[in-house]
């Protein structure tokens, strides 16, 4: 078990390093002169020089890379060019919006999708099942930002229950802030929930046909008893894979959704930074986000080992 963990941890580390190198290469080395990119064609020579000095562009690339990564590990991400404040401050400000949003979306989609998937499998080929499949087929086809706009149209414009965008701010009251995250979370959750429901359903269906369920029934367990006691853990395994994969799509989703709802989160920050060509911010944020995805995948891998003893090593005796 320990070896398994170590190997995975090493892979994690290697992937993180590789990610940071690629981001660094793409955003600092390949453009040739990042400062020129940031300031644009009409930049004045002295502003250019000043920026170059500030970014330490006179140092060789490898040294810059190490300075950057070491800084990251210590929480120092440099200063944003456009905002003039440390990037870490910006991140701290924005993460309190994006993180709750992402969590809400995950919780919403899981809470809806998994029971629905199990239900559909239990009522295989009956109207409930076909209904679930049909709805999820449509839900998967709907782009989440359009769904968001539709939600706004209905709940904000027509019914006026919610505002059409903007974040109320945590300091202005917990529920107010939560309310402004609700519609965005629903929009994010929709396509994820649809995919998750389908995967849950097919996973449970497969389990239902397994021999060990038959054995459990032969022992005297009732139909749903057998499925719950023996099937759930096995069925969860592919479901968790998908949830892990979904995470990176979720991140991409927050970028768009935050823009639709004008939420001051990390996604919006990336977007604004690009518009303003603030490469420093972009670099840091991308590495941060990509790194998060890698870490999440690692956690998913670890979860497997917990769920499935076959992965913990030790062949047959």
């Amino acid at each position, binding site marked *: 078990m320990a070896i398994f963990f170590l190997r995975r941890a090493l892979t994690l580390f290697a992937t993180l390093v590789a990610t940071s190198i690629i981001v660094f290469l793409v955003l600092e080395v390949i453009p040739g002169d990042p400062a020129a990119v940031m300031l644009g064609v009409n930049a004045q020579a002295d502003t250019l020089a000043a920026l170059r000095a500030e970014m330490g562009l006179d140092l060789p690339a490898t040294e810059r890379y190490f300075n950057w990564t070491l800084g990251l590990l210590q929480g120092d991400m440099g200063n944003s060019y456009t905002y003039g404040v440390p990037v870490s401050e910006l991140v701290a400000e924005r993460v309190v919006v994006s993180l709750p949003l992402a969590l809400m979306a995950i919780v919403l989609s899981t809470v809806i999708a998994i029971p629905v998937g199990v239900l559909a499998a239990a009522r295989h080929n009956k109207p409930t099942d076909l209904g679930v499949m049909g709805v999820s087929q449509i839900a998967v086809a709907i782009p989440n930002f359009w769904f968001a706009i539709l939600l706004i149209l209905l709940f904000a414009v027509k019914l006026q229950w919610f505002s059409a965008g903007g974040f109320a701010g945590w300091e202005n009251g917990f529920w107010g802030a939560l309310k402004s995250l609700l519609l965005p979370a629903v929009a994010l959750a929709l396509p994820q929930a649809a995919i998750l429901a389908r995967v849950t359903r097919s996973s449970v269906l497969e389990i239902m046909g397994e021999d060990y369920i038959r*054995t459990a029934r032969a022992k*005297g367990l009732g139909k749903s008893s057998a499925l719950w006691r023996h099937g759930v853990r096995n069925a969860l395994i592919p479901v968790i894979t998908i949830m892990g994969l979904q995470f990176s799509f979720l991140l991409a989703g927050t970028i768009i959704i935050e823009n639709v709802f004008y939420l001051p989160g990390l996604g919006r920050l990336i977007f604004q930074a690009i518009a303003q060509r603030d490469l420093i911010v972009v670099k840091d944020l991308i590495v941060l986000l990509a790194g998060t995805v890698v870490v999440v995948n690692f956690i998913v891998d670890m979860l497997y080992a917990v769920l499935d003893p*076959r992965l913990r090593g030790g062949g*047959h005796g």
Partner: protein
Amino acid sequence: MALLSVENLSVHIGPAHILKDVSFSMEKGETLGFVGESGCGKSITAMAIMGLLTEQATVSGRIVFDGQDLLTLDDRAMCKIRGLRIAMVFQEPMTALNPVKSIGFQIAEGMRLHLGLGRAEAERRVVSLLDRVGLPAPRFSPDLYPHQLSGGQRQRVVIAMTMACGPDILIADEPTTALDVTIQARILDLIAEVVEQDGMGLMMITHDLGVVAQTTDNLAVMYAGAMVEHGTTQAVFSSLSHPYTRGLFGAMPHLESHGDLAPGALLPTIPGSVPQPSEKISGCIFAGRCERAQDQCKVAPPTLTKNDGGHQVACFNPWGVVA
């Protein structure tokens, strides 16, 4: 009164008539073998008794166990019979166990469910059960997982599971078919031992006549969903009354009956092939391939009748009768 009495059991799945009017009975502690080729309905009979047929199956007839017709029971009532009074071992040991639960858990589960045992008591019994099936401590602990065991060992665990609640009847559906030949004999010995020690009835389903010879006192031969011969194993083997039984026996490589065949000679086979379950055949189901078929065989199906040898044959013109 017989412990188990199956009367006119018929099973339809869609247009297919899978089991045709099967009747037999089992006494307490009786060992009964069911032989026939794949698809002849032997497994379906077992599943019907256990109440584990697919939902699309229509069943008619009676299955009387200890005075109760099992076919009238709902699933909850059947759950109290399964595992506790009638237990079953299936063919595939590699997939019969849940890979994510320990073998101890899976063996104890039935006991905790039916006998209401507490954790400690159940654990103790699990250890002694494992010992009885040839998986002694300390090498084999209840905390092991199925993937840590070989096929033969897993089948032993399954047998332990079936013994756990002391059932009256053990149904074994091809328990050794998926195992190595060397392991087969040991598992069969184990089953025979367990059945005898605990006074259980045994329904041994197999296509292998050798297995039947080793483990059963009585024998039923199935063909295309119908029972064609039924008697003591010895009687059936020595008389081979039904033409199908004789053909089956003849087709098995067997030193005694084939030892005098010239080298290069072919093993005898039964000409033709098994009819599809959805085919409607009037008359004897085997008539199309039977070398002893007569006109009456094509008109109406024969029923199991006692012949001189003391066992039952469903044939108008069986072997051993002076025609």
